[in-house]
């Protein structure tokens, strides 16, 4: 697989502050890539460098095999971009703006009309004749997604695409992203972990301008995530917590509501073998025992610590 985006030692500094600090990143063509990080981690700066809106202080970034700064229009013709807060000409209507955006990509005639109509449908703005100045933030966000798709881009760059949307709008945008899988490389930055877990093939976690981890979601959970066992006992859970905490395979033990105990384990097989015996030794009844992986959220918190938002 070729890389749609390749950053090598990418650094962006503002005075003494490093917004990005030696970022190495590779995004496979055709994949859906989640770019996670707490607020201020450098996600928007990364997107500004990818789109040529800013220049790196050091290192390099290639988009679709070309240097962004050198290639100019040739790269921009193949990407679609949605900024975190899209700003439009408020005197235009949605249709007018999409036609304008399509025109900038050289689209015209029936192709432009057809694509404009399709994207207005996608954005739920078909038949809306109000000027953009009167739109809600959600409507602007949906129009932002639509304009990013007007050129059927090879690479779609989305900065927090679902942040201003209601649950239905969010679902629609995520479904749209999933529908592009294999045809378009989608790179989207977000701090909504559920969105990433739902649609992404791979993910990078950015923290204080550095990539803390990059891998497929499954691999990331395996690499960083200890496994979790949740048990529910009939009575005496507090005493059992102390007993389990002494075991070598128990990384942490915490009480959960309704007599449940959450145990983060380093060796799930040992835990599954020994827990029933420990429960039985205390004369307790085992109501339930579930074993599973940690979620992306827990991996994220583990990697970026308390700085996460």
């Amino acid at each position, binding site marked *: 697989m070729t890389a749609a985006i390749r950053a090598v030692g990418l650094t962006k500094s503002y005075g003494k502050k490093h917004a990005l600090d030696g970022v190495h990143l590779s995004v496979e063509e055709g994949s859906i890539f989640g770019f996670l990080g707490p607020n201020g981690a450098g996600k928007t700066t990364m997107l500004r460098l990818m789109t040529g*809106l800013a220049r790196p202080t050091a290192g390099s970034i290639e988009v679709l095999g070309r240097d962004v700064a050198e290639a100019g*229009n040739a790269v*921009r013709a193949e990407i679609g971009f949605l900024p975190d807060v899209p*700003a439009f*000409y408020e*005197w235009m209507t949605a249709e007018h703006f999409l036609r*304008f955006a399509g*025109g*900038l990509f050289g689209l015209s005639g029936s192709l432009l009309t057809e694509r404009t109509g399709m994207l207005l449908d996608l954005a739920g703005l078909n038949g809306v004749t109000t000027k953009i100045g009167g739109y809600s933030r959600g409507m602007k966000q949906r129009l932002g997604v639509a304009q990013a798709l007007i050129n059927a881009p090879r690479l779609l760059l989305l900065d927090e695409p679902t942040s201003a949307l209601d649950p239905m709008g969010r679902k629609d945008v995520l479904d749209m992203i999933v529908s592009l899988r294999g045809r378009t490389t989608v790179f989207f930055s977000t701090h909504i972990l559920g969105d990433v877990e739902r649609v992404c093939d791979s993910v990078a976690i950015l923290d204080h301008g550095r990539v803390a981890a990059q891998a497929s979601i499954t691999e990331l959970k395996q690499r960083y995530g200890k496994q979790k066992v949740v048990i529910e006992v009939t009575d005496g859970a507090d005493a059992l917590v102390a007993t389990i905490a002494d075991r070598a395979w128990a990384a942490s033990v915490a009480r959960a509501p309704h007599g449940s105990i959450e145990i983060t384990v380093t060796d799930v097989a040992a835990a599954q073998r020994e827990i029933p015996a420990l429960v039985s030794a205390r004369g307790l009844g085992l109501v339930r025992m579930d074993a599973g992986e940690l979620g992306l959220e827990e991996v994220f918190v583990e990697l970026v610590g308390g700085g996460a938002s």
Partner: protein
Amino acid sequence: MSGYRIFARKELSEIVRTWRIWVLPAIILFFAISGPLLARFTPEIVGALAGSQLGQIELPTPTYFDAYTGWIKNLSQITLFALIIIYGGIVSAETKSGTAILVLTKPVSRRAFVIVKAVIHSLFLTILLVLGTLVTWALTAVTFGEAPGGALWSAALVWLVYGVLFMALMTLFSVLISSAAGAAGAGIGAYVLLSIASIWKPLSEYTPAGLPGQAASLAAHATTPSSLWPIVTSIALSIALAALAALLFRRKEL
């Protein structure tokens, strides 16, 4: 090339569909209408207001040249100030609001973004000047009974060169200064400097500083040195300023 064309069409639509179609045209139209009427009736107005206080002083009979010089004077002062203020944000308004980001991440070069703006708005100024001058010309003919066109149009065209120079200057300032008010302040500063420079004869004869004086002299049908050098240097400077604005904008981070 389609990027230039589509963006130019957007600039034209923006002029027609926003406040831009009202403000500068209204100012120019106001002076185009009021100039000849004020020139024609000033003696009567002053006489009525002053009454017997004028005594033996007799005001000269106004001529169509008074209407012409009034038109050029208004263009060179209030209209130019309005232009400076209106175009303080010609580029920065888009970079500040974020609309430039959606345009410049599409196949539109930054050079096209800046040059199209400077050219389209210079064209808009030209159309307004032609319309305003036509109105002044017609009203002068009606109020004075005669209005030879040569002096008026030559003066207006000389002023147009000065107006376009300021359009290019404001484009540059708007790239350099992110605040529209700050750019307007710099524009007014440039206006004051050029006004002072016009006092020194070599600068007046060979640089843009001489254009307002030349335009006023042409309108008054007074003897003037050739306008060729100020026009040539102004056009060259306008092109250089717009090119510099495009170059600096290309290096700017958004």
